[in-house]
């Protein structure tokens, strides 16, 4: 089970509405390389991991990704909550507004809703761990493109934190891949 903590993993500061930035950042909420996809991918792959160490890594990173999803939601929510309709229209977020008002929904930067087809759970730990390493690199790259697009230093600071975490997750998945390889080799030899 999970216990909710009534705080963010990393503080979020938003001083003024910026629906244009929200429109892009929302892809890390409900886009192909976003935090929902990351969290659900790891939390569902963990059931068929062959070693206790791999089950631990997938559980713990999957849980941290939930915290990142909440940080991204906090950014999006605060960037659009007080935005006047004229700004929402100018940012091209009027289609989103028609479906969701200023609510937070799982879409990519173009408004396409999240789909489980973004993720895989293959039953083959080597395939799954390779997917996860690629997913972390894609998330890292997305945060870099978002940092390039950001015109708000407070938001950029949060995006940098999230980017750094993808680098660490990639590292841990790489180590996990080695551990699982060793385990499978040993199983083959004996």
């Amino acid at each position, binding site marked *: 089970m999970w*216990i909710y903590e009534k705080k963010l993993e990393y503080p979020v500061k*938003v001083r003024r509405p910026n629906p244009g930035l929200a429109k892009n950042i929302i892809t890390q909420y409900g886009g192909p390389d976003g935090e929902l996809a990351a969290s659900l991918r790891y939390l569902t792959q963990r059931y068929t991991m062959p070693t206790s*160490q791999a089950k631990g890594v997938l559980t*713990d990173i999957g849980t941290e990704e939930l915290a990142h999803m909440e940080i991204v939601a*906090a950014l999006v929510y*605060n960037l659009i909550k007080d935005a006047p309709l004229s700004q929402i229209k100018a940012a091209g977020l009027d289609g989103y507004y028609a479906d969701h008002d200023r609510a937070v929904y799982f879409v990519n930067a173009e408004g396409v809703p999240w789909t489980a087809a973004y993720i895989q759970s293959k039953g083959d730990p080597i395939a799954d761990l390779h997917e996860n390493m690629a997913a972390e690199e894609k998330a890292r790259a997305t945060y870099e493109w978002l940092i390039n697009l950001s015109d708000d230093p407070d938001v950029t600071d949060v995006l940098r934190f999230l980017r750094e975490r993808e680098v660490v997750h990639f590292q*841990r998945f790489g*180590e996990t891949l080695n551990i699982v390889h060793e385990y499978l080799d040993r199983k083959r030899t004996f």
Partner: protein
Amino acid sequence: MNPEQKRLLRIIQALEFTAIDLTLYLDTHPADERALAEYNEVSRRLQEAMMDYQRRYGALKSYGHSPPQTRWTWIDEPWPWEVSD
């Protein structure tokens, strides 16, 4: 949220972040005794800071994980995403 409350919350966030990062590290380096000692120390400090904060400002965790309260503080504002400061 008053400045003192925010200051304590920032300390908790920093301690817990260290604990999260060490957790992931220990998952792949369980025999690293220095990392384990660091994890134990940061966990102790985090528990202390959480207890101190919750006694003053109300529950940060639900489902029985916060100290006894004389009124239901869990639903006090702000929620974590209500952050514009």
